[in-house]
C-alpha cells in the first residue's frame, strides 16, 4: 500500500469503459457485433489533439499501466516505471492511453463476457482475435477520443507487435512507432513454449473444454503451469542466478551459487520444493492463476503465434512497411532469449530495406525479456531523450 503517492506518480486513476456498437469483422472472418474496451488515460489531451500516446499491452498487461486504483493497492500499474510526471513517457506533456485488449479478462469484452447470441458467457466460443483485430479496435478507440494521429504508439513484446501493425495498417495515424523487445514473428521455439502453456491449461481436468465456469471451477493448476513456463522465458539465466543466489556459509561468493539458494537450508530428499526458484515460480503461477482467465490466456498465445505481417507481402517484411510514414525506434536487450537482439534486428533490417527512418538500441541488460518493463537506466535515458524530441515536434 502506498502510504502517500510518489510525486512522479499519475496518482489515483479510474478506468473508463467505452462501448462500441459497430460490428468488428475479425481476420478469421468472424464478427464481434458489439464490444467494450476498458481504458485508462493519464495526462491531458491538448487543444490540437497532437500529444496522444497509445500504450499497447503485452500478453498479461491490461489497461492499468500506471498509478493506483486506491490507496490500498499493493502495487502501481504494470508500466509505472515509465509513465508519470517527469518519467520517460511524461504525463505533464503527453496524453497517455492504455487499454485492455479484446479477448482479455480485465473488463474488455472477452471469453468471460456474455455472448449476445446465446445469452451465456462466451467461454471457448470467443473468436480467436489477432493483433490486426486489436489494432482495428484501437483505431476506433482513437476515433472516439478524437485522436487523428498518435504522437507515438509504444509497446513491448506482444505490445510491440501491435505497434508494428499500427505502422503498417494506419500509416497516416502514427508519428512515432516505438517497439521494445520485439520480433517480426514467433520462431518455432517460441510457438513450442506457447503450445506447452496451452496444453497445460486444456489438459487440466478442471478446464471442461473451456466451460469451467459452468462447473463453478477454474483450471488453476493448468494456468499456473502455463504461467510458470512463460515466466521462465521472460527471465534470463543471469537474472535467475542473481535473484536466487545469495552468499551462504558454505558458498562465500554469491556468483558461485548459480542461483541455487535452498528454501529450507537443506535438501529434502523428496519431491517437494527444495530450491528458492521453484518456490518463486509456484508463487508467480499461483498469483497469476487467481487473476487471469484461462480462455484469455489461450487467446493471447494464439495472437502471438499468428502474428506475421509479412504474410500479405510474399514473406518480405520490408514490403509490409512500404506505406509506413512514421519514424521508428526499436530497442532490444542483451539477455532476452525469448526475442533476442537478432530478432529485433530483423525488423531494423526490413525497415532499412524499405528506406524508413529508424533508430535502434541494443541495450546491455541482465534482466532478460522482462527488461523492457524495468527501470534499466540506459534504456530509461534513451526513452526520455527520444520522447523529448517527440514532445518538441508536437509542441506539447
Amino acid at each position, binding site marked *: 500500500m502506498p502510504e502517500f503517492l510518489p510525486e512522479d506518480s499519475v496518482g489515483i486513476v479510474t478506468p473508463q469503459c467505452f462501448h462500441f456498437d459497430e460490428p468488428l469483422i475479425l481476420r478469421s472472418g468472424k464478427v464481434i457485433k458489439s464490444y467494450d474496451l476498458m481504458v485508462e488515460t493519464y495526462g491531458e489531451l491538448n487543444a490540437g489533439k497532437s500529444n496522444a500516446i497509445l500504450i499497447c499491452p503485452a500478453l498479461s498487461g491490461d489497461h492499468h499501466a500506471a498509478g493506483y486504483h486506491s490507496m490500498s493497492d499493493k502495487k502501481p500499474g504494470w508500466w509505472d516505471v515509465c509513465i508519470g510526471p517527469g518519467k520517460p513517457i511524461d504525463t505533464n506533456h503527453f496524453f497517455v492511453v492504455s487499454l485492455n485488449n479484446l479477448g482479455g479478462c480485465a473488463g474488455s469484452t472477452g471469453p468471460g463476457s456474455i455472448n449476445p447470441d446465446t445469452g451465456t458467457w462466451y467461454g471457448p466460443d470467443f473468436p480467436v482475435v489477432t493483433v490486426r483485430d486489436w489494432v482495428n479496435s484501437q483505431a476506433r478507440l482513437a476515433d472516439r477520443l478524437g485522436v487523428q494521429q498518435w504522437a507515438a504508439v509504444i509497446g513491448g513484446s506482444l505490445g510491440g507487435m501491435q505497434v508494428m501493425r499500427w505502422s503498417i495498417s494506419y500509416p497516416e495515424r502514427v508519428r512515432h512507432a516505438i517497439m521494445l523487445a520485439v520480433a517480426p514473428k514467433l520462431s518455432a521455439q517460441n510457438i513450442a513454449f506457447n503450445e506447452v502453456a496451452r496444453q497445460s491449461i486444456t489438459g487440466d481436468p478442471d478446464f471442461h473444454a473451456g466451460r469451467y465456469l459452468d462447473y463453478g471451477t477454474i483450471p488453476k493448476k493448468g494456468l499456473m503451469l502455463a504461467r510458470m513456463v512463460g515466466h521462465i522465458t521472460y527471465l534470463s539465466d543471469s537474472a535467475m542466478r542473481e535473484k536466487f543466489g545469495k552468499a551462504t556459509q558454505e558458498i562465500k561468493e554469491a556468483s558461485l551459487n548459480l542461483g541455487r539458494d535452498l528454501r529450507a537450508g537443506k535438501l529434502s530428499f523428496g519431491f517437494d520444493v527444495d530450491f528458492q526458484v521453484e518456490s518463486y515460480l509456484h508463487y508467480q503461477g499461483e498469483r497469476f492463476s487467481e487473476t487471469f482467465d484461462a480462455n484469455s490466456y489461450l487467446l493471447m498465445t494464439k495472437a502471438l503465434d499468428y502474428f506475421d505481417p509479412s504474410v500479405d507481402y510474399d514473406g518480405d517484411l520490408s514490403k509490409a512497411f512500404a506505406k509506413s510514414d512514421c519514424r521508428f525506434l526499436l530497442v532490444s536487450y542483451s539477455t532476452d532469449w525469448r526475442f533476442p537482439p537478432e530478432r529485433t534486428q530483423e525488423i531494423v533490417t526490413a525497415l*532499412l530495406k524499405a528506406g524508413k527512418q*529508424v*533508430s535502434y538500441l*541494443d541495450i546491455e541488460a541482465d534482466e532478460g525479456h522482462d527488461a523492457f518493463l524495468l527501470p534499466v537506466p*540506459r534504456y530509461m535515458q534513451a526513452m526520455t*531523450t527520444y520522447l*523529448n524530441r517527440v514532445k518538441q515536434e508536437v509542441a506539447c
Partner: protein
Amino acid sequence: MRADLEIIEKWIKPGSRVLDLGCGDGSLLAFLRDNKGTIGLGLEIDNNKIDACLNKGIDVIQQDMNKGLGNFETHSFDTVLLTQTLQAMHYPDLLVEEMLRIGKNCIVTFPNFGNWKSRAHIAFKGRMPVSDFMPYQWYDTPNIHFCTVRDFDDFCLAKNIDVITRTVVDNKHRDSAIIRAFPNLLSEIAIYHFARGEQGAK
C-alpha cells in the same frame, strides 16, 4: 563549425541520403540535415554518443562496423561517410568495399601517417608518435591500421576506386598551397571523396 564539415558539405547533394559510419554525437549529420536537407542515418556503438544523436533528432543504429554491414542494401544511400575512423577498423579494405557497395559515393577522412611530424618522431625519437591529436600509446591505441596519403592513393588504384576529390589539410583542417604541393609530407588529415571505378570491383 568543425572545419572538416565545411569541406565535406560541398560534396553532399541537397536532399540526399547520407550514412555516417561511426557518427559520434551526430553533429555532422545534424549539420548536413540543417544546411543541405539531407536524410541521415548514423552508426555508433557508444551509448552516450547515441543519446546525443537522439537528442538532435538524428536516427542512429547501435551496430559494430567491425561485424559487417550486411544489413544495408546495395546503393541504398547516396553518400557513405567515414570520418577519422578508418585507421581503427579491423579490416579497412573490406569496410571500404562495403561502403562502395552501399553508397553511390563515399567520403573518408584519416590522419596521414606520412606527415613529417610522424616521420620525425620515429626517425629521431625512435618511438611511435604520440601527439595531442593522437594521444595514445602503442598498446592502448584504437588506431591499428595507420596509412599515409601515398598508401591510400595506391590502395585506390589497386581496388579500382575513382578518387573524385582529394583534399589534404593540417590538423585544423586548413588548406594551403604548400600542403597541396607536398601532400604526403605536410598534410595531417586527408579527406577523400571517391566512387567505384567503371570497371567495377577488382
